[in-house]
Structures are given as C-alpha cells and as structure tokens.
C-alpha cells in the first residue's frame, strides 16, 4: 500500500516537471516566432519605402533602373530609428531593459534592376529563463526589396 502511494507521488511530480518544461519551451518558441514575424514585417516595410523613395526618375525614360544608394541606406536607417524606436546601437529599450538588438551583417544595393537586400540577426534574451540561463538567442533574418517596371 505504501509503495503504491509513493509511486503515485513520483508520477505526479514527474507530470508537473514535464508540464513546466513543455510550457517553458512553448512560451520561448512563441516569443521567438512573434519577434521574427515582427522584424520581417518591419524590415520589409523599411526596404520597400527606402527603395521607392530613392529611385532616380530621370533614368526611367531610358528604361534604366537606377537607385541613389546613399539615399536608400539613409532612408532605411531613418525608418528603423523613427518607426521601430531603435536607438543608435540598434537596440530597442523598454523600461530600461534591452528587448532586442538588431545586428545587420550585410547590406547590398544593386542597380538595373534595382535590388536592396539586408541580412543579419536579432539578438534577444529568453522570456522566462532570462535570470536563470544567461544566454542570447539569435534569430536570423534576410529581407529583399526589388523595383520592377511593368510597362
């Protein structure tokens, strides 16, 4: 009788343990997934806006697709800092805490046809385990914008 009771307690503790692990993993993955989705959307917006703004119209009549590269890059950075509230180190700080850091590894701007491509990583901390496990979670991203003539 006592052995059976002990067995039940062990199974209950195991169940709770597994439940906590599964919940933690789910929350962490959900956080990473939503952050990745948000960054993809915002980067895509920034690139589209920068590309459209920096197109050089005088070349269009000659059917040449050209972009002012420096304007495109500055417009892209301007969007990141004004619309997504990143600071000069590309970090989003809320309540004195760094929520994530955007690390841009490559920026490629090409002409004819115009192509603006950015890739890098978003560095964030775990939501639930930030105090227990001092690790960074790196989420990669790669976003591309093109300007194409149809007529």
């Amino acid at each position: 009788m006592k052995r059976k009771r002990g067995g039940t307690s062990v199974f209950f503790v195991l169940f709770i343990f597994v439940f906590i692990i599964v919940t933690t993993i789910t929350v962490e993955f959900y956080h990473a997934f939503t952050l990745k989705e948000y960054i993809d959307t915002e980067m895509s917006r920034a690139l589209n806006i920068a590309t459209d703004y920096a197109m050089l119209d005088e070349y269009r009549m000659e059917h040449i697709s050209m972009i002012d590269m420096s304007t495109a890059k500055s417009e892209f950075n301007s969007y990141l800092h004004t619309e997504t509230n990143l600071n000069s180190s590309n970090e989003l700080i809320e309540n004195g805490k760094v929520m994530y850091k955007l690390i841009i590894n490559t920026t490629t701007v090409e002409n004819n046809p115009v192509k603006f491509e950015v890739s890098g990583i978003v560095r964030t901390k775990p939501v639930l385990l930030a105090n227990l496990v001092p690790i960074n979670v790196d989420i990669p991203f790669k976003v591309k914008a093109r300007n194409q003539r149809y007529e």
Partner: protein
Amino acid sequence: MKKLKYNFVPIWNKVNAKRKKAEGFIEILFQFAIIMSLIFCFLTLWKPFIYKQNLDYMAKTLVRAVEANGRINGDITALANDLKSEFGITPTISWSATYNSGTDKIQLRKKFTLTVRDTITIKLIEPSFGPPVAINIPIEKRFIGISQVYWK
C-alpha cells in the same frame, strides 16, 4: 468490557462498501460531465475561432494591399468584396488615413488604420420547440499600416 450480543462488523463492512460504490458513481458522473463540457466547448467554439482567424487574415491582406498600392480605391474595395465572399464573412470595414489633398492617395510613410467590426454568435442550445439560446460577441480589430508608395 461487556461483549456485544450482535456482531456489527459484517454489516458495517457492507454499508461501507455501498458508500464507496456511491462515491465511485458520483466521481464517474463528475468525470463524464467534465468530459462532455470539454467536447461541447470544443464543438461550440470551433466555428467562432475559425471565423476570427478568417477576419484577421482578411484584414492583414487588405492592409498589405493598401501599403503596396498607396491608395484606397476601387481595387481595394473589390479585393475586400472578393475576400468577404471567399471566406463567407460580412464585417464592417472602415479606413482612417491622411490623404494627399483631393485624392485617395496616401503619401509615403504616412500611417493609416483599418478597423473591422463584426458580431460572432455562439449558439448554446437550439431546441426544436423554440428559438435558439445564443450569445452575441462583438469583435473589433484595428490594424495599422504604412504607405510604401512615394507620390511625386
């Protein structure tokens, strides 16, 4: 100590066994009720959940279309009607934006808001002898977009 004339132990054991059986029956009854409630909730809430998913998808598609189009015109209205008929939903759609004067164009980096409103009906009981007992839940979702077209 005086010994009792009758031995009550077998009777007590019988009563105890019956009590345990009754407890077991009530326990099973509760378990059954909980399981049935879960199944009922799953069947009842499944349709509104899908409805809300479709509403979100439609709103996101419209916002994305206006972002790329840079204007809210007949094409967007036609797209909204197509999506409504595709998903079988009938929400009220309203736009809020700062347009270029005298046009339906939204300048680059100007924000606009799409609001979708609808009511989801959850039927609790549908008796044959009377009207169904239902709960109407109003939904209002707001999505913000940003124009990606430079109007020169």
